[in-house]
């Protein structure tokens, strides 16, 4: 039976439906909705299964008893119970559960998370010796490569600074002026200057257009062991055996800051444009990160057990590595958070150098060179080059090493008075030199 639908206005229709709804529900407006048992049960079951499934069958936790291991055990439990198609809610619940149990303490990500998949080290071709340059009459102590990659400079224990052509290895120039061993050389990439420092407390600035010394930076009280130039500011930083590092203004020769704090010889110094701008490593086995503006220590890293003789900053990453007789350690900027140990080179490490490809080279006092993959710490090559004929076998030691600016040649300054140049072996492939990566599995080996 069809009825004629009364034609009302929209307003009327809406108002009427409103009224009807109001009448229907006004009586039990405040009352809660009656629970339908069956539907409720169903809802509960589904919700439990979906949200709290993993939590249902847990054993009772005991307070304060070996939380870490238990957590890992519980993690295992988690894995067992997790459904193949894990959704976010489960992980969220896991997180909640964790937070409940831990009481909100700081979490150690390494322990909490699942054991990470082992990172595979990147394959690097092995390096081989391809040139030996002899000409110095004493140990070759330091190396610097010119920004244009045409020549490089070496400072030696025979008190001379020699400039060699990079491509051919021929001697171009010999500079004399130091009274004792030349311990550090640096070439400025903003002005035609060469800086050198020696064990005679002198820091000299050579003008390369005239090949003469134009400035002396006077102030160190003892042998100056290393120097570095700031990449963006015209400032030179030198470090010395008098346990200080000094910051010099290049133009005015003024000693801007004296960075004190170390208690023993400061063996190495590095400068960078980002914070912290100066990093020093010392024979008191600490590394200090300095604030250049204030001239004060920002952080002290005391992880090393033996003298820190060398530092190197990664060219692209915001990390650096320090070398000492016990270990090579990698750290993160800007606070110096410890990343990992590179252990295996059991010798006094005199020098480190790093490549853009992630090749870290460590040269030791006994003449051995270890090549590492920066990211994983895998030692993929060990080289011990033979000494120059005429030298004793004990006269093998590496004092400095540096990559040239093309990162294809490694130049090392050695104790048998030679300079050795290494290059990558082109004929090697991944199959001929396989990666033999045996890291510590799961738990990081406890010391």
């Amino acid at each position, binding site marked *: 039976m069809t009825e004629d639908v009364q034609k009302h206005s929209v307003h009327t229709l809406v108002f009427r439906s409103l009224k009807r709804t109001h009448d229907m529900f006004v009586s039990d407006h405040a009352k809660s909705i009656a629970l339908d048992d069956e539907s409720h049960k169903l809802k509960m079951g589904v919700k*439990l299964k979906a949200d709290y499934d993993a939590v249902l069958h*847990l054993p009772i936790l005991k307070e304060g008893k070996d939380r870490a291991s238990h957590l890992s055990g519980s993690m295992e439990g988690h894995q067992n119970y997790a459904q193949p198609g894990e959704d976010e809610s489960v992980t969220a619940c896991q997180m909640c559960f964790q937070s409940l149990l831990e009481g909100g303490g700081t979490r150690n990500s390494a322990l909490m998370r699942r054991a990470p998949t082992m*990172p595979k080290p990147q394959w690097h071709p092995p390096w081989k010796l391809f040139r030996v340059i002899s000409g110095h009459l004493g140990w070759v102590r330091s190396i610097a490569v010119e920004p244009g990659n045409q020549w490089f400079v070496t400072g030696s224990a025979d008190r001379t600074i020699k400039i060699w052509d990079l491509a051919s290895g021929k001697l171009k120039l010999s500079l004399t002026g130091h009274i004792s061993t030349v311990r550090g050389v640096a070439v400025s990439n903003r002005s035609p200057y060469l800086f050198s420092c020696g064990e005679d407390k002198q820091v000299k600035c050579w003008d390369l257009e005239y090949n003469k010394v134009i400035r002396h930076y006077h102030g160190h009280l003892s042998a100056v062991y290393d120097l570095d130039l700031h990449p963006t500011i015209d400032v030179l930083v030198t470090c010395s055996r008098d346990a200080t590092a000094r910051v010099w*203004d290049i133009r005015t020769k003024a000693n*801007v800051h004296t960075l004190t704090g170390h208690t023993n010889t400061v063996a190495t110094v590095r400068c960078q444009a980002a*914070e912290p*701008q100066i990093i020093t490593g010392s024979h008191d086995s600490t590394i200090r990160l300095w604030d250049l503006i204030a001239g004060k220590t920002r952080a002290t*890293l005391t992880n090393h057990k033996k003298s820190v003789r060398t530092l190197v900053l990664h060219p692209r990453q915001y990390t650096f590595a320090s070398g000492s007789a016990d270990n090579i350690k990698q750290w993160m900027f800007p606070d110096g958070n410890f990343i990992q140990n590179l252990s295996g080179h059991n010798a006094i490490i005199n020098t480190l150098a790093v490549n853009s490809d992630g090749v870290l080279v460590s040269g030791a006092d006994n003449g051995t060179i270890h090549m590492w993959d920066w990211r994983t710490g895998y030692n993929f090559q060990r080289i011990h080059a033979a000494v120059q004929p005429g030298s004793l076998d004990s006269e093998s030691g590496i004092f400095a090493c540096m990559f040239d600016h093309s990162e294809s040649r490694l130049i090392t300054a050695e104790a048998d008075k030679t300079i050795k140049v290494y290059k990558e072996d082109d004929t090697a492939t991944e199959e001929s030199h396989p990666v033999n990566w045996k890291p510590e599995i799961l738990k990081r080996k406890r010391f």
Partner: protein
Amino acid sequence: MSLTSFLPAPTQLSQDQLEAEEKLRAQKSYSTALVASRREPPPYGHRKGWIPRSLEDFGDGGAFPEIHVAQFPLEMGRKKKTSNALAVQVDAEGKIKYDAIARQGQGKDKVIFSKYTDLLPKEVLNEDAPGLQKPDEEAIQELTEKTRAALEKQVSQKIAAAMPVRAADKQAPAQYIRYTPSQQGVAFNSGAKQRVIRMVEMQKDPMEPPRFKINKKIPRGPPSPPAPVMHSPSRKMTVKEQQEWKIPPCISNWKNAKGYTIPLDKRLAADGRGLQTVHINENFAKLAEALYIADRKAREAVEMRAQVEKKMAQKEKEKKEEKLRELAQMARDRRAGIKSHGDKGGEDSEARERDEIRHDRRKERQHDRNISRAAPDKRSKLQRDQDRDVSELIALGKPNPRSSGEAQYDQRLFNQSKGMDSGFAGGEDETYNVYDQPFRSGRDMASNIYRPSKNIDKDAYADDLDSLMHNNRFAPDKEFSGADHGQRREGPVQFEEDPFGLDKFLEQAKQHGGSKRPSTSNRSKDDYHDKKRRKE
């Protein structure tokens, strides 16, 4: 049917629930208990007249502002001796901040690593992880600018002393500040609500010398507090490794300051004797062998030689014996021959024997005469020996002239039949009767006594010695004092006239046979008186 009925009971109550429970408990205890087991402060509103006196009265909280009494919850606020104890601090999650000790002198923003987790290696991140990226260029440039400015300021301050004096630089002194003080009223600021302040930078005198002396040497200030040492715990020492590092005590081979007595094996322990192998040259063995061989050979040679000689000697002896036998045979034959001629020649044989003896003696005498004629001065060996003294002969080891084949018998053994007195001589020890004959029977005694002849000086002074002697030409007029007036000797030993009369004394002693006492003799008395007289 609530969710809580399905889920297991929570193990940790949330903060709200805890508070609620405590409140309930407090109310209950307040209402029902006669004596409160735990001293809780009364709840807000019920505190009239109540004064918190002890530490527990404050419960969990602090001072009560509505109670107008000096209160020191947790002993805070009391005037006490300064202690450098740090207050226990708790971080946002409720854990106690233990590194407050390491952060004592530093600002709270300083980066200090003190936790165990800072020591653990972190997970190897991918190369493009965000944490590993350098800050972007703008940030770096900004930092560079800031640093450069700061360093410039520092440098200019340092070299300001060297810079020439310039005119004072003008600062625009046009800073005005509007200031609304907090204390307002009619009395302050003469009623005005606000003040305007004009800030001008003080002019620096360009000619001013430095204000402070910087040539003083002052001791360095204390260093910044040391950073916590983040070393991995030291490796465990195995027993084997500890044994390897054991150093034996030093026992010197030269000094022993405390004078310890140490057994020899300890003294030589550090010598390294057991470690070296002694290398002996093999030539030593060769030498020894060669010596043995040489010795053996020499012995053999000597033996052979001796044997040969013995044989030779034996042969000679045999020959001699043969000869003697022949001679004896001849003699026997002669005798037998003679005898066989006839026994009447017996007397002739005696005469012949006497003749033979005389012949022999004549021969000897002739022989001696010949020798003495030939070399009168040259003595024969026998004569030489005869002239020697007994002690010399004994020293030279010459054989006793009497030592012949015949046996020597002790004289005391002879004449044993004489009786007790014989031989043994009655037990007297003083008799010297070992030898029956003198060694040299006085034949050369005479020659041994020195008897100078008158002509002893013949060769030196010729024959007219007497005339020379009695020549007074060389006698001095004045002689030396203390010169000896001794006369010339005439004999070997010139005896003086004895001043003490000892000769006579001895003669008398001999005469009287030693029976009379010498003191009774007159002579001696006279001597004694003589002596006395002389003294007087």
